């Protein structure tokens, strides 16, 4: 609920994290790779990271709205599969930079471009090896009060305002 929306569980060893663990601000995004609003947020998060440097760490959790976005689940699994080979963020970026090309062939193309072990990538995609992981992120989002995508949490509290650069910067400064 809006007054008490608190992220659970807190950022842990399983999360995909960019930035220093001791940064005063942790920004968590629950996102969907096919969601156009998450696409809008992607360069904003990059700009925040550039501006704030060591002051902020960024965490991405999966929240695919699969009924609305038929490619979102597979895209999330592909990012996790790349993560299994140490290239989560590279795939995350490729997906957001190519939101209109998220067919399975496209995902394989990106995996190839990242020089992933292709037999392993294909096997893990076909067996939905990371589906459970994606679902766990989704469930944690639901329990944390995610009410759409993207949903941002700043130091564990849901950010309810707009997510343009100025608004996020102001909210982060307040939390720091």
């Amino acid at each position, binding site marked *: *609920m*809006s007054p008490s*929306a608190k992220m659970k569980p807190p950022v842990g060893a399983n999360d995909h994290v960019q930035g220093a663990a001791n940064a005063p601000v942790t920004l968590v995004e629950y996102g969907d790779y096919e969601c156009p609003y998450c696409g809008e947020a992607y360069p904003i998060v990059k700009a925040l990271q550039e501006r704030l440097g060591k002051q902020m760490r960024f965490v991405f959790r999966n929240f695919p*709205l*699969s*009924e*609305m976005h038929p490619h979102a689940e597979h895209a999330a699994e592909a990012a996790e599969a790349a993560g299994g080979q140490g290239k989560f963020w590279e795939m995350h970026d490729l997906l957001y930079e190519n939101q209109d090309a998220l067919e399975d062939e496209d995902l394989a193309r990106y995996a190839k471009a990242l020089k992933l072990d292709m037999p392993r990538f294909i096997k893990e995609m076909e067996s939905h090896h990371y589906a459970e992981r994606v679902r766990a992120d*989704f*469930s944690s989002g*639901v*329990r*944390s*009060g*995610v*009410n*759409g995508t993207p949903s941002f949490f700043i130091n564990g509290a849901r950010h*309810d305002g707009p997510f343009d650069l100025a608004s996020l910067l102001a909210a982060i400064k307040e939390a720091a």
Partner: protein
Amino acid sequence: MAEDANKILAAGTAAPDFSLHSTPDQLVSLRDFRGAPLIVAFYPADWSPVCGDQMALYNEVLSEFHKFKAAIVGISVDGAWCHDAFALARKLHFPLLSDFEPKGAVARKYGAYRDADGVAERALFVIDPKGTIAWSYLSPVGVNPGADGILDALEALAAKK
């Protein structure tokens, strides 16, 4: 605002019965859901972007609700044909009920009607298997309340058993 927050039916109240159209030729009643928890989500209108998000979110979260054997219905004052088109467009897998004639009668019984606007509030109720309200929440009309409160309430209900 504080006045509003007090007006929706509170936990412990018997949930008022209703019988509303889910499609132009199908009626759905509260008593159809006896024996399992029911989530009743009143919302202002089909098609407005925030509502779309709220119903779309519940659509994505259905499997989490089903873990508690809970069903969900959405209720607004839109007509059954309108609900039909909206549910089809958003691929919704749960019924939207039409509180259309007399307009808003069910929403009023739950204290979830906005007289000034002529639409339902954005109000959530979790009704226990015996038909008593276990939890209710009135959201600011512009804010999608999410699903965490509903799931917390379902969890508390399951723990009571």
